[in-house]
């Protein structure tokens, strides 16, 4: 646990989940690991927030879920992006880019 990794910024968790799932269907821990890996450990996902967010996104209609059997015959819940979820990802990504660009411009002007 390095000190440099941060909790996911408030409000971006949904987008990160949607983005991760746009690659392939995944279960909860898979999503968490992927976010950490791809962000090279910058983002650390709290399991409670993640699982709650998954419920929320599912109820919003952006995710579908199914139960699969694991090798040691446990149940695992896999999430998959729906078409509405794909659209939502596009909207959120565009919004994020717009803001990030604006922040970047501000910082540049400051410097």
């Amino acid at each position, binding site marked *: 646990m390095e000190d440099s990794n941060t909790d996911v910024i408030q409000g971006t968790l949904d987008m990160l989940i949607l983005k991760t799932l746009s690659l392939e269907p995944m279960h909860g*821990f*898979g999503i968490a690991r992927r976010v950490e890996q791809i962000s090279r450990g910058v983002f650390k996902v709290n*399991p*409670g927030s993640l699982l*709650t967010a998954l419920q929320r996104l599912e109820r919003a209609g952006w995710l579908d879920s199914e139960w699969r059997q694991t090798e040691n015959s*446990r149940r695992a*819940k896999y999430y998959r992006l729906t078409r509405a979820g794909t659209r939502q990802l596009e909207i959120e990504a565009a919004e994020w880019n717009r803001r990030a660009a604006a922040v970047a411009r501000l910082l540049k002007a400051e410097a």
Partner: protein
Amino acid sequence: MSLWRQLTRGLSVLAHRDEADRDVADECDHFLEQAVADLEARGLSPEEARRAARRELGNPVALREEVRSYGWENAFAAFFADLRYAARRLRRSPGFAAIGVLTLALGVGATTAIFSAVNPILFESLPYPHAERILGIWDRGSDGSPVTVTFGTFRELLTRARSFEAIAVWKSWQPTMTGAAEPERFDGQMVSAAYFRVLGVPPALGRDFDPADDRLGGPRVAMLSDRLWRRRFAADPAIVGRQIKLDDDLYTVAGVMPKAFESVLAPAAQVWTLMQYDTSLPPGGREWGHHLRMVARLRAGLGVEPARRELDALAHAPIHEFSRPPWAKLAQGLLVTSIQDDVTGGVRPALLAVLGAVTLVLLIACVNVTNLLLARGAARSGELSMRSALGAGRPRLIRQLVTEGLLLALLGGALGMALAQLGVRALVALSPSELPRADAIRLDGAVFVFALIVTTGIGLLVGLIPALQTSRVDLHQGLRQGSRRTAGGHRRARRALVVAEVALALVLLVGAGLLLRSMRLLFAVTPGFNPSHVLAMQVQTYGHRYDDAGATHRFFAQALEAVRRTPGVAAAAFTSQLPLSGDADFSNVYGVRFEHDRDPADEHDAFRCAVSPGYFETLGIPLRRGRLLDEHDVAGASTQAALISESFARRKFPGQDPVGQRLRLGASDRSWNTIVGVVGDVKQASLAVSRVDSVYIPAEQSPWADGTLWFVVRAQGDAAALTPAVKRAVWSVDKDQPVVHVATMDALVESSAAERRFALVLFEAFALTALVLAAIGIYGVLSGSVNEQTREIGVRSALGATAGEILALVVRQGLGLAGLGAALGLAGALIASQALTSLLFGVSRLDPVTYLGVIALLLAVSALACWAPAWRASRVEPSITLRAD
């Protein structure tokens, strides 16, 4: 879309809580498992991996709880958990639950039933558009009382008054319909053309009455009620314009009233026709008789006061075109009433009193249940302390206790609604026949909302009071078993509640007592005749063969003869005005002028009774002076005979003999009648109303023939059993004449007090309930306090107190509470009895006998309630109690 998903998912979670929990648990477990596996894959030993995962991810139970608590349904879930817990607690003490639920059901049920009866009469406006603009207009009698108007007055106002959109008069009408089916008699109204415009309800089918038709000799038209139309004419829409036969005449159907039309002024009315009086107002005709009810609809935006002022001005400013006879001079002005008051005014005091009484019962029920909950709260202080030690905050505890109160109230409310359903039926059956809008009494939406509000209110109340009391329990003291008697606060609260209960019960008991005394006194009033073994029935004539007065007289004379010959009949007679028949609504009240009065305008109102000879003998009305009527008092006799009632004679002829004096009944062109006798006073209108002035004339000598007469028959045996034989006797003369309103005179005497009886029966029931509940309350508190004082009692008896002294100690406690309650209740009753004043008869609302009796009763019942706990206390074995702690 997602809202829908939110809703359905939430509901499915609620419905399958276990499954949802398993899913969450599985998902969390899988997550942790994967995390451990991941750490192992990075080279940690299984043991290290598990510990690291635990460190990183936190408590797995907390994780599960966090995920599980997502969703709106969880807010409900907490409530449902409280509810489930409350239900479990109630199930575990079924005795307590049963008493609480039953008590509340009784209160809610009674209140709801009464509210449903009272609502359409007292609170809802009449079922007409802008009903508040419909007014009743009356002539004002010499004593200021409302008197029905004449057609002449109506015509004058119709032309002169500017305050009204529409103005109409009506009188009742009972036509007999003949035709294909068997003849049937209906209640109906004869109205002037604008009647339905005054009410603001146009017919659903056809057209409203045409004012042009409302004249002498105009075309005969009829309006039908929806019910009559469906029943007799199979809801045929082609009925409009067709002809129906009423009273031997053909009437063209003008229209059919809407199904929802409620005829409030004449509840039984099924058919309406135009009055068609002579608009030239011939003097001495029926156009100048005081027998019409007038209703008017105010112009929009105009208040009642300006209208009242205008009518007053018109009454005092006669104009040439409208000459008025002396008895319709409007010298006292006109009386304006709200039609709502006209319809409901008679029963309003009784209903308000009953509503007040039932509210008291509800309050007592609430107090009792609160008391029960408090007692339980004391017993539960250990449990609550435990829960609070485990981390439940005070709000959480209060919520739990309030939920219990709510659950109890909801169960009580549901059962109460079922009771109300029965109660409403009983109420309608019990209600006096003059109860207006009885058809509108039912459990409708308004009543349901009322019950729901009452129930919720009760739930919060009975839950909150004990919750606030109990949740204040000190944690340490609650957990220490030995200190379970520290809850002095709740004991004070319980005592206060018992005092309140006794006070409320006393108020109710005083009400019931006063009504009971009134009823006794009322039935001790002699009606002025002997009602036992007398049968009465109304016989009517209809059809053109009775257009001639002679034919009418002949029919009634022959019918009476036939009735007298009927086996079992001891005596029989007829009269135009039957005492206590309920139709003494001034239509039989006429102006009487005595010859010896100097001032020709000096008139007195009196009941006109056109009777057959033998009437006084049949009813047992005693002769005081002179003679009764006999067979010589016929149409062509030299003297036109009259008898007057006793107190009337005493007032008009103080110290003189009225016999031989002359009087005139009604219009000034009528001939003089000679007073031949004086008979005893008879209560004509009701037992309570003292108006008794009456003038009796032989029906045969009356200037006009009454088309409707009451037959009175004195039976040798059972009066009611004679009914078929007497009817057959009447029909043997003319089989087509309706015989209606058959009743024994005993029944009429009874029903003349129906409204008081209605109030009395309900008050008695409520007062009894209150008494029982108060006794239970006293018993409960004393039992509790004896249990709590066992140690003290033990010490006392160890120190030498005898069983009798202990007994006295406890009884004194109980009676102290009862006495304090009675004192407060006395003050309450002194105030509350004002509401009963108009229902009382012959007894003051401060009647000391009633108050003393009621207090004695209450204290006696309280003493009884004290006895059992006191007895238990006196048997306390000091050695056992002292060892117990």
